[in-house]
């Protein structure tokens, strides 16, 4: 009989699996470890979607509480983090719906734009464009720029490029097909690039040494 041995390391469980098992066994402190591990990411995702700090705080709390209560339903087919992100995205969209007094809110919002599909600004950027702004100015530019993206592009960019989910995980989390995630990601990246070019483009008369003529 063939001996089917897993290749060493191939099926090594994710460290969260042990923590989830401990929580299921009644160890609430193990859940606190999961909270500490992911609270920043979940808060950021909620803030990017709701664009409102108070809502993002509520979403973060509700998402973790819901995860704690529904841990029994977590199948373990996906990573705990991906499952948690899905809860946070749904909570965020629900929160937006409330703010807009029941108006439909979906991740398909405003994506029928052609902006950014064809790059128009072809100017190169300064060598270290961030150096031209202080930290607060830079953060403001980055926030303003990403806030201007259509919701359906912004969520995909945040999950995929900022928080590091794979294309497959992003698709699963948002209930989108893989081609839809890829198409939105490309357009999100190109739109952001186009908008950031206004701030980061190489100024006329700028030479490689970084000294302006």
């Amino acid at each position: 009989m063939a001996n089917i041995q897993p290749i060493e390391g191939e099926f090594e469980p994710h460290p969260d699996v042990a923590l989830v098992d401990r929580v299921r066994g009644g160890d609430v402190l193990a859940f606190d470890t999961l909270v500490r591990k992911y609270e920043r990411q979940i808060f950021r995702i909620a803030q990017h979607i709701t664009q409102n700090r108070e809502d993002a705080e509520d979403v973060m709390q509700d998402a973790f509480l819901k995860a704690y209560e529904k841990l029994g339903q977590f199948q373990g087919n996906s990573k705990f983090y991906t499952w948690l992100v899905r809860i946070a995205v749904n909570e965020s969209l629900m929160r937006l719906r409330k703010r807009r007094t029941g108006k439909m809110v979906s991740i398909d919002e405003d994506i029928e734009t052609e902006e950014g599909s064809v790059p128009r600004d072809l100017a190169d950027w300064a060598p270290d464009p961030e150096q031209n702004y202080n930290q607060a100015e830079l953060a403001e530019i980055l926030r303003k720029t990403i806030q201007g993206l259509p919701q359906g592009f912004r969520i995909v960019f945040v999950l995929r490029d900022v928080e590091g989910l794979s294309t497959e995980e992003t698709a699963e989390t948002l209930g989108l097909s893989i081609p839809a995630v890829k198409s939105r990601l490309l357009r999100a990246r190109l739109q952001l690039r186009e908008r950031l070019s206004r701030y980061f483009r190489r100024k006329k008369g700028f030479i490689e040494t970084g000294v302006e003529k």
Partner: protein
Amino acid sequence: MTCTEFLALLDDLLDGSVTAETRAELQAHLGRCGHCEVILNTTRKTIEIYRSHELYDLPPGLHDRLHAAIMNRCRKC
């Protein structure tokens, strides 16, 4: 390869998911198209810059409030 074809493969190139053969074709296009080179470099920089700057810090006290809420919920379960 045209610029449109290059653009269609830009994400795969950025994500490192192109075959060696396609990569060579993309490199050849970059060698003769300054515009696509700018688009590749500035798009890569766009991703890097968002990845390396935390735009929203966790508000102070939020962790403690969540911890208290979980402990409260735990007592009931």
